[in-house]
C-alpha cells in the first residue's frame, strides 16, 4: 500500500480496495516504525489524520469523488495548521500552535486530503541540507549517512522512504527542487504568485513559493491543482485561471524546443551528473524534442545577489519573533532589550542568526545601494536572461544540483560552500519562473535530478515534459533499500 502513488491511491479508493482510514493507519504505523531512522517528521498528527480519513470515507460513501479525497499527505512545518504546532524547524516556534490554517492547508483539506503530520525542515527554510533544524538533521533514505537536501528535507525524505506519497514544500532558492533531486523525487516550484503565501511563514517574501513534492509528475499535477490559484489574502497572488495540469500531462513532446545553457555544464558540475543529464536529453529527443545550446550569461552572479536579497527580506520578516505575542520568550528578562536579545539569541539557530545579520548589514545606512540595490539590479539582469532565452526555446534543461547528496556535517564548517550548492536553482526564484526537478538516474546508488525551467505560468508544460519522460523511464519508481 505504501508504494502507491497518489494517482494509484485515488483509483484504489474509488474501487474500494481499501478505505482512507486503512491506508492512513498503515502509513501511521510505518511512520512510527521507520521515521526514527530518518527524523523526517516534527509532528505526527495521528488524531487529525484518523478524523480526516474517516471524514473522507464518509464523503465518498455519500457519493463524493475527487482525486485527493482520502489522499494522505504531509505539510512542511512552515505551513500554519490551526491548533497544531507550526515550528518552522525553530526553537523560537517550538511552542507555537498556529491560530489559523494556511490557504494551502485549507485548500488541500477541502479537497479531502489527510494530514499525517508536519515535516522537518531547515530552520525557517534556511539551508540546503536540512541540518539547521532545531529538531535535528534529517537523513537521506538512500544513504542514512547523507543529507536529504533542504530546506524541504523532511518532506523529501518522508516521500522517498514511502512514509507518505506526497507532501507540500516551499522553495526560496531551490528548497523543493534540490531535496527532490537528492532523494529521487519530482518537485515543482511554481511561478511566483501561483500558490498563495497566506499562512506560509515567510523566509524571503519576494522569492518564497509553495509547491508539491511527490514521486511522479502526475502526483505533482494532482496536488498543484488543489494548492494553486488566486487568494485575495495574498497581495502577490496572481489572479489568473489555472491550467488543467492533468489534461496537459498527455501532450506529446514532438517539436518541443529544449535549451541547454552552457553555464549549467561548466566547472563545478560533477561530470557523472553531467552524463546523467545528457542521457535524459537523449530520451527526450527520442520523444521528439529538439535541443539548442543557449546562454544565461548572468547566472554566475545569482548567488551573491540571492544572498543579499533573501537575508535582507529575512532580517525584516523575522523581526516579529520578539517574545511578546507568541513563541519563545527567555526566562526573567531584566528589561526590554534583554527580552529581545535573549529571546532571539536563544530561540534562533546559528544559520538563521547569520542570515539575519547579513541582511541587517545589507540594508543598513551607507550600504543599501552597494548591496541591496545592486542585488536587485542583478536580479533584473537574470530575469532578462530568461526572457531572452525563452524567445528561442520552450524549456530550459540542466542539472538540479552540482553535486550528489553529501555527508551529514560535511559542509557545516563553511556556510559559503553550502550556499554554492544552490547555483542552479536560485535563478528561477530571482526571476520568479517555474522550475521542476525530476529523477534522472543514479550514481553510486545516489539519485540525480534534472531541472526543467519554463516561462511564467507554464507549470503545465513542465509537468507534461516530466510526465512524458516518466512514461519511458523508471528512475522515479525506484525505492531506497530498507524502505
Amino acid at each position: 500500500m505504501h508504494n502507491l502513488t497518489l494517482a494509484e491511491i485515488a483509483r484504489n479508493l474509488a474501487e474500494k480496495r481499501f478505505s482512507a482510514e486503512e491506508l492512513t493507519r498503515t502509513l501511521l504505523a510505518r511512520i512510527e516504525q521507520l521515521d526514527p531512522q530518518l527524523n523526517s517528521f516534527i509532528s505526527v498528527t495521528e488524531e487529525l489524520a484518523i478524523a480526516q480519513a474517516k471524514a473522507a470515507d464518509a464523503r465518498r460513501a455519500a457519493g463524493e469523488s475527487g482525486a485527493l479525497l482520502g489522499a494522505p499527505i504531509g505539510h512542511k512545518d512552515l505551513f500554519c495548521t490551526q491548533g497544531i504546532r507550526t515550528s518552522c524547524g525553530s526553537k523560537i516556534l517550538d511552542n507555537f500552535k498556529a491560530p489559523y490554517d494556511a490557504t494551502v492547508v485549507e485548500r488541500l483539506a477541502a479537497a479531502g486530503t489527510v494530514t499525517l503530520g508536519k515535516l522537518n525542515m531547515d530552520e525557517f527554510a534556511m539551508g540546503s541540507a536540512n541540518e539547521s533544524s532545531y529538531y535535528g538533521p534529517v537523513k537521506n533514505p538512500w544513504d542514512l549517512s547523507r543529507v536529504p537536501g533542504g530546506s524541504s528535507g523532511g518532506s523529501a525524505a518522508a516521500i522517498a522512504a514511502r512514509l507518505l506519497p506526497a507532501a507540500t514544500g516551499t522553495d526560496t532558492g531551490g528548497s523543493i527542487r534540490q531535496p527532490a533531486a537528492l532523494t529521487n523525487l519530482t518537485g515543482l516550484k511554481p511561478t511566483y504568485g501561483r500558490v498563495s503565501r497566506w499562512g506560509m511563514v515567510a523566509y524571503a517574501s519576494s522569492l518564497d513559493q509553495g509547491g508539491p513534492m511527490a514521486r511522479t509528475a502526475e502526483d505533482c499535477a494532482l496536488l498543484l491543482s488543489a494548492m494553486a490559484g488566486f487568494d485575495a489574502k495574498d497581495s502577490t497572488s496572481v489572479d489568473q485561471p489555472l491550467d488543467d495540469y492533468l489534461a496537459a500531462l498527455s501532450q506529446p513532446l514532438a517539436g518541443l524546443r529544449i535549451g541547454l545553457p552552457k553555464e549549467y555544464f561548466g566547472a563545478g558540475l560533477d561530470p557523472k551528473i553531467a552524463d546523467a543529464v545528457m542521457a535524459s536529453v537523449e530520451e527526450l529527443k527520442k520523444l521528439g524534442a529538439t535541443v539548442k545550446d543557449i546562454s544565461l550569461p548572468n547566472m554566475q552572479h545569482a548567488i551573491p545577489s540571492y544572498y543579499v536579497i533573501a537575508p535582507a527580506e529575512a532580517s525584516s520578516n523575522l523581526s516579529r519573533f520578539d517574545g511578546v505575542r507568541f513563541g519563545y520568550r527567555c526566562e526573567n528578562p531584566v528589561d526590554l532589550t534583554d527580552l529581545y536579545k535573549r529571546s532571539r539569541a536563544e530561540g534562533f539557530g546559528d544559520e538563521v542568526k547569520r542570515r539575519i545579520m547579513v541582511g541587517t548589514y545589507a540594508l543598513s545606512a551607507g550600504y543599501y545601494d552597494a548591496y541591496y540595490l545592486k542585488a536587485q539590479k542583478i536580479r533584473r539582469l537574470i530575469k532578462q536572461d530568461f526572457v531572452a532565452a525563452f524567445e528561442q526555446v520552450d524549456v530550459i534543461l540542466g542539472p538540479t544540483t552540482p553535486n550528489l547528496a553529501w555527508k551529514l556535517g560535511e559542509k557545516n564548517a563553511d556556510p559559503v560552500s553550502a550556499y554554492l550548492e544552490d547555483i542552479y536553482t536560485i535563478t528561477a526564484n530571482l526571476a520568479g519562473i517555474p522550475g521542476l526537478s525530476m529523477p534522472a538516474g543514479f550514481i553510486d546508488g545516489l539519485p540525480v535530478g534534472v531541472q526543467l525551467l519554463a516561462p511564467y505560468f507554464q507549470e503545465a508544460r513542465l509537468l507534461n515534459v516530466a510526465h512524458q519522460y516518466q512514461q519511458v523511464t523508471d528512475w522515479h519508481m525506484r525505492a531506497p533499500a530498507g524502505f
Partner: protein
Amino acid sequence: MALERTEVEKIAHLARLGLSEADLPRTTETLNNILGLIDRMQAVDTTGIEPLAHPLETTQRLRADAVTETNQRDAYQAIAPAVEDGLYLVPRVIE
C-alpha cells in the same frame, strides 16, 4: 569590505540578537566569508539597470473598506507568553 568586531556588535544590536564575547570572533569571521561571496556582485556592470523588487512587476490590488474581522482575543492570547487583562506584558517601556 571586511567587518570589524565593533561593526558586528552594532549589527547584532540592530537585529536585537544577543551575542556573547566568546561568539564574536567566529561570527565576525563567518560574516566576512559571506560578505566576500556577496562582494563578487560589485564586479557586475549594472549601469542603467532598474532594480527589480518583485519578479512579476504587477501592481497592488486593493481591498474594499469593510470590517471582516471579529474579536478573537482569547484564542490569540492563548499562545502568548505573558498577558494580563487582555494586554500583552513586556518589561516596562521607559519613555
